């Protein structure tokens, strides 16, 4: 039995079903990120875990205890809201201790817990201020302090960083990770930012339109996406999805596609799955991450599946640490990630080296990964 277990969680508002039979299992101390585009149901699911929304059907268990119908304050959870939701009429100290006061914790204990948390988050100097006198980052810390002080079984975060500016966001992201490592408390974290999902999580649930797309570790999600949606949602720039045809020759499997001039190029699959053979002479979608397409110098020498093609560079985008090079494969813009000093010019014909160990075939109809 898992620490937190969600079985067939379904949510309808009237006749509209916004969440379809979600199944989630996580162990104690895990960092689960619910990620997906807006309207995918991730915040609804979080609110259901918190007890702020009812289940239409399905079950939730924390530590093996059925939580359906249990009041939010009795679930031993703490939540950090996107808007921080700090009580505007109370000081920082009162904000942090309000929950304990409601639970009848004696004043001395409340003060001790508050001071411990304030020190941990470095907000001791702010305790007498009102939320309106704090900056965005400080409010964020206070909101986390309010959650931390309760020593909950599960922390729930609802897009906690999306109101911060870009620089502060990266800093707070690291701090959240540090806190999780120091405390070891289970976290469920909602975000629409796939980088936050990748960097923070031990487990990711990718959601779209109320359906679970894939549930797995960040590595699984990134390297073996279950379908085209996950492949294109996770990763920046997203995975290249190239129309191709499967060819079999001398027992080897090839993906045949077109280069810039419309001539055929063949890419040999390094590790074809069992069922790929059945796609002989049929169309597939070939998924290749930008970092799996490079120039000869920075190609992975240990890979057994390096395929080399000549292609025309259409656009280069220097991004400081890397340069993104766009070319055309199978009629689609295909982005390659190269070294910053690769010295590539638009209009240049050059050699691209593709790491076919990292290539993932998808069925064009079902959009599922071909195993």
């Amino acid at each position, binding site marked *: 039995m898992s620490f937190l277990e969600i079985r067939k969680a379904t949510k309808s508002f009237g006749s509209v079903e916004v969440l379809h039979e979600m199944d989630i299992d996580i162990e104690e101390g895990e960092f689960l990120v619910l990620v997906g585009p807006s309207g995918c149901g991730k915040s609804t699911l979080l609110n259901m875990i918190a007890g*702020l929304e009812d289940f239409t059907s399905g079950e939730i268990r924390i530590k093996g205890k059925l939580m359906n119908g249990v009041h939010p304050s009795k679930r031993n959870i*703490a*939540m950090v809201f996107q*808007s921080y939701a700090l*009580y505007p009429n109370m000081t920082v100290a009162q904000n942090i201790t*309000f929950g304990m006061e409601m639970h009848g914790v004696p004043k001395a204990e409340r003060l001790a817990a508050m001071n411990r948390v304030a020190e941990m988050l470095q907000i001791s100097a702010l305790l007498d201020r009102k939320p309106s006198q704090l900056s965005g980052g400080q409010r964020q810390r206070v909101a986390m302090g309010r959650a931390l002080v309760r020593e909950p079984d599960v922390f729930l975060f609802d897009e906690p960083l999306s109101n911060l500016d870009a620089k502060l966001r990266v800093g707070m992201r690291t701090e959240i990770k540090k806190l999780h490592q120091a405390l070891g408390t289970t976290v469920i974290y909602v975000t629409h930012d796939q980088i936050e999902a990748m960097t923070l999580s031990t487990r990711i649930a990718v959601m779209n339109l109320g359906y679970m797309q894939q549930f797995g570790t960040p590595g699984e999600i990134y390297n073996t996406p279950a379908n085209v949606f996950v492949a294109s949602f996770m990763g920046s720039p997203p995975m290249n999805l190239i129309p191709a045809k499967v060819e079999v020759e001398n027992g080897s499997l090839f993906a045949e596609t077109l280069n810039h001039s419309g001539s055929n190029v063949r890419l040999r699959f390094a590790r074809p799955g069992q069922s790929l053979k059945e796609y002989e002479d049929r169309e597939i979608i070939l998924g290749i991450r930008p970092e799996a397409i490079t120039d000869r110098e920075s190609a992975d020498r240990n890979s057994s599946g390096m395929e080399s093609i000549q292609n025309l560079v259409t656009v280069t985008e220097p991004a400081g640490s890397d340069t993104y090079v766009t070319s055309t494969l199978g009629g689609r813009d295909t982005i390659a990630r190269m070294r910053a000093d690769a010295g590539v010019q638009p209009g240049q014909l050059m050699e691209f080296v593709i790491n076919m160990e990292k290539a993932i075939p998808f069925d064009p109809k079902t959009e599922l990964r071909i195993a």
Partner: protein
Amino acid sequence: MASAPDIAVSTGRVARAGIYIFLLLFALFYLLPLFVMLVNSLKPLSEITGGNMIALPRVWTVEPWLEAWSTAQIGVQPTGLKPYFWNSIKMVTLAVAISTILGALNGYVLTKWRFQGDTILFGLILFSCFIPFQIVLIPMARILGIAGLAGSTPGLVLVHVVYGIGFTTLYFRNYYAAFPTDLVRAAKIDGAGFFQIFWRILLPSSGPIIVVSVIWQFTNIWNDFLFGASFSDLDSQPMTVALNNLVQSSTGVKEYNVHFAGAIIAAFPTLLVYIVAGRYFVRGLMAGSVKG
């Protein structure tokens, strides 16, 4: 610049002076009735009957004020307005407090504890704002009779509370609709109950709208004549009815100076409420309209 003035059009010096003179003239014009009332309440009756309404008193006297307050003939009793003033204070204080608290509770439930049919219910509550007083006089009299509250201050309080709830609910519902629901959710997770969330989270942030509700209710209830005249006995009559009885008496000499003093006394509490809380009134009415 710490605080740039928020004006749409900037004007020249001459135009500005013109505006001020214009405004000053109008202010004086509007203050004229108050001036006449004040001046005449401070002179002996003989000076008024002598035909000099606008002039300052030749002999200054507070006698009319004292008479209006404690010895003037109201109906059959020479009690002055004093007992009726306290009747009104009792009635207004209770009715304003109860209707404001109920309106706040209604607004809280209608926005933060939504349920099936809540918008229809709100529509019905709102409907009560548009029912003319006269229509409900007879049914209200029946109900007060059945409840045993006819002719008493609690009866009047009930009538005004029932009539006020529509408006107070409207104010608080609209105010709380802009109040972040995340705060209520956070408080729920923190373990606060229905009333704890109301007292500890919502009410402390409701200052402006409480002021609006109190001013609106206070003015309406204090100035109400119809309900006061219909549903009160001699010992529960409010100020407005007493003032009418003072001014409209058909026997004896018309003591205009006493009447002026009485009218000012009757208007004083509402005036005071506006002076003390008026700026919050405008602020509360505007809350949420520009920026949340």
